[in-house]
């Protein structure tokens, strides 16, 4: 955390004053700092998941490998998938959402700053609880989708699956709370003039993502509860012998799981829609169709879950219907791709590192989309299901799609988030190594899948003909990993000693670039008036390049002159999250006293804080933030 508190020590008179140092982080309520925490934790979990993947690739490099045992291999692929999806990509997205969305809509914070902190601590607590399973006797090993009956008490008698169920439950509650928070924020906290059809695309995709969170997480919550009750209290839901249904888990999981993959990709779409216009010096092409496509994707994502279960025997009718709905998603997705291309068409392109990632995204994501459509052909999927072809598909969409876009976002917004630039030269190396390494690693997996190599096997015989492409894939991982190392180096170096960023280093278009880098605690000295789509660009073209303060509504509340009223830091969210994590351990290790104690403390904490009105505190506005806004208004 030392590196980030470096940022905190930048001269910022516009700083909430209550706490310093570590305490400032534990009591954090500022959306920008919560965003930093999400990004840092997401990056750390990404490295953990990366190491797990690295070991698996070493094991698979040669036939009959013996780097790890079959049992450890099961734990590795389970924890790798679970970590990457729930603890890396999602938190990185939510990190950018926290850091940027309030700035994009001209707000001073989110609707519920304390709940925002609670979301973060629940995510971190759930993630750490899950990963603590490596040391506490039993790591999840039934795959990231944790199918019954293999995840049931009979075939997974250890504690591993309990860590999965309870860790994800806690992290999931955090995500759900984020969803509520950002929906209310986007509906209620937009600056005057920021109408729905002027919302930046990243804010739009956030909005739809959070609707998906809201509707997709409850089925997962229920599923995890059911499995917890089955494993801990001998309830019967999934056990065929007792009349239960293992397909119940699969259905509830994918009713959550497919929207979940769009929760992972929609914010990425939003980032690409911000980066490409900025570096093409053109407004986003087809804005309205972009919005409609996002809504359509969100809606359709609830209608396709059976495409993960074509082989479970629902028959040709069901499979055909879900094959069609799945292919239908390619249409709005295609609309987006053509809009991005048209935005670049005839633009003044600048290939900064952020733009390189965006263009790299276009290339790899389209490939991933195409293998997706191939998998959606149900008869073909009967062959491809459970093979490396599926592995190739989802890594193209998740790395080549989500992760590349997140890295585009990192290079693009890093100056706004930390006040410093990432090094562009290192950035280029970072991009090319990862881009080439990624393709060398994952493209061969299409061939391996078509040749019949099943996913999740821990080794293979030399006679199977899988050797060559496996060697190529592992070779690619070394390139990919060196790119990741450069990324880490670049981030660490720049946080500590990167070039200082100006307010608007990219000559960009959105509100977030109208204020200093990093943004002051209150974001905007005065709430800006939004006069059009791409508000800052409008002022650059038609004003003096600075935002105009919005006229105060009559009867608006006024604080002391030159001060802004901001939420007050508090440690309560952290304590609430701790009680839930403690209760989680209580259930995993069957310690009644711990469960009772933790839940009692939770009750006390809720009782003490539920109705408390945040008194807030006043933060003095820095003169330069006043000057960053147009004088008339």
């Amino acid at each position, binding site marked *: 955390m030392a590196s980030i508190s470096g940022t905190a020590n930048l001269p910022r008179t516009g700083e909430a004053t209550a706490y310093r140092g570590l305490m400032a982080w534990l009591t954090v309520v500022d959306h920008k700092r919560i965003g930093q925490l999400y990004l840092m934790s997401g990056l750390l979990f990404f490295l953990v998941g990366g190491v797990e993947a690295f070991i698996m690739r070493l094991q698979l490099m040669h036939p009959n490998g013996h780097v790890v045992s079959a049992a450890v291999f099961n734990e590795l692929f389970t924890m790798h998938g679970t970590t990457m999806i729930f603890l890396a990509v999602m938190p990185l997205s939510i990190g950018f959402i926290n850091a940027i969305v309030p700035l994009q809509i001209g707000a001073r914070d989110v609707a519920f700053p304390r709940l925002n902190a609670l979301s973060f601590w629940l995510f971190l607590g759930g993630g750490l609880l899950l990963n603590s399973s490596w040391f506490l006797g039993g790591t999840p090993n039934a795959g990231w989708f944790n199918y019954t009956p293999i995840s049931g008490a009979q075939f997974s008698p250890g504690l591993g699956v309990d860590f999965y169920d309870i860790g994800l439950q806690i992290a999931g509650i955090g995500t759900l709370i984020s969803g509520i928070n950002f929906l209310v924020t986007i509906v209620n906290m937009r600056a005057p003039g920021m109408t729905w059809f002027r919302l930046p695309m990243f804010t739009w995709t956030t909005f739809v993502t959070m609707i998906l969170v809201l509707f997709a997480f*409850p089925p997962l919550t229920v599923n995890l509860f059911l499995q917890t009750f089955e494993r801990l209290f001998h309830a019967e839901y999934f056990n065929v012998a007792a009349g239960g249904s293992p397909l119940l888990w699969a259905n509830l999981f994918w009713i959550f799981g497919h929207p979940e993959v769009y929760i992972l990709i929609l914010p990425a779409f939003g980032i690409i829609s911000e980066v490409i216009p900025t570096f093409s010096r053109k407004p986003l092409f087809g804005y309205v169709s972009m919005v409609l496509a996002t809504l359509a994707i969100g809606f359709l994502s609830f209608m396709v879950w059976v495409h993960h279960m074509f082989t479970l025997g629902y028959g040709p009718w069901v499979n055909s219907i879900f094959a069609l709905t799945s292919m239908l998603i390619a249409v709005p997705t295609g609309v987006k791709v053509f809009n991005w291309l048209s935005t670049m068409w005839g633009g003044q392109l600048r290939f900064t590192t952020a733009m390189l990632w965006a263009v790299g995204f276009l290339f790899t994501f389209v490939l991933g989309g195409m293998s997706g459509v191939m998998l959606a052909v149900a008869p073909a999927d009967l062959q491809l299901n459970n093979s490396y072809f599926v592995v190739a598909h989802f890594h193209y969409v998740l790395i080549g799609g989500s992760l590349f876009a997140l890295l585009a976002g990192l290079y693009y917004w890093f100056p706004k988030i930390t006040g410093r630039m990432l090094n562009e030269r290192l950035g280029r190396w970072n991009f090319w190594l990862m881009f080439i390494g990624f393709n060398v690693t994952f493209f061969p997996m299409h061939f391996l899948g078509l040749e019949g190599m099943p996913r999740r096997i821990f080794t293979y015989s030399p006679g199977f003909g899988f050797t060559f492409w496996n060697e190529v894939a592992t070779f690619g991982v070394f390139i990919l990993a060196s790119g990741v190392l450069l990324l880490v180096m670049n981030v660490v170096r720049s946080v500590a000693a990167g070039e200082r960023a100006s307010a608007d280093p990219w000559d960009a278009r959105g509100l977030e670039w109208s204020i200093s880098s990093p943004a002051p605690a209150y974001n905007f000295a005065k709430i800006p008036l939004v006069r*059009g789509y791409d508000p800052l660009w409008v002022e650059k*073209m038609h004003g003096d390049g600075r935002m105009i303060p919005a*006229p105060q509504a009559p009867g608006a509340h006024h604080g002391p002159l030159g001060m802004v009223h901001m939420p007050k830091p508090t440690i309560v969210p952290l304590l609430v999250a701790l009680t839930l994590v403690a209760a989680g351990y209580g259930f995993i290790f069957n310690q009644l006293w711990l469960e009772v104690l933790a839940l009692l403390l939770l009750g006390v904490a809720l009782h003490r804080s539920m109705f408390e009105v945040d008194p807030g505190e006043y933060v003095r506005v820095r003169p330069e933030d006043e000057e960053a806004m147009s004088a008339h208004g």
Partner: protein
Amino acid sequence: MPMASVTERGLVGASDRPVAELGAQEPMDNSVLGLWVWLSAEALFFASLIGVYFLLHTDTNHGLTPQTAFDLPLTFVGTIILLSSSMTMALGYNQMRRGNVVGLRRWLVATAFLGLAFLAFQAKEFTGFYSRGLTLSSSPFGSSFFTLTGFHGLHVLFGVFWLLSLLAYTYKPTFMQEAKTKVQVLGLYWHFVDVVWVVIFTFVYLMGKVG
């Protein structure tokens, strides 16, 4: 005021509206809107649980079935009690609107009491089932029944906790200034939990009895 009508895509329009209207972009209080959003997730939560129940309730493992298990008169009384608690909650809200904190307290207590009475009936029902061999682990019917109704009961319990917590909070001198959304939000939650029960009573108990 430089509200110049700029002519690029969509630039005229909302920015030309009068300022008062611009400022009036906050139609619903954050906490009320937040509660509605939360309840929509809760609705999906219970919908999933009801779905699970419908899938599994015919698997009774040669034990009690919905027809043989349910004691409708008992549950009916519980239902009436819970429904009347919605009424007392609304009466409390009215008292708050009139600025009568004492009246509000009275109805909060009544609502909490009715909530607890409902839970007592549910406890009686559950212990009856257990003594007749229908338990969380006796059959998929039992498991899915107890998860659905149990989670509903937990929501009632949380509501009672919320009512009593708010009751304690009403003794704060500044309470009446913040009372409106606080009571409104709790009321929404409480009515929601009641509506869920009506759905459960209809589809689980009544239809279960019919077969």
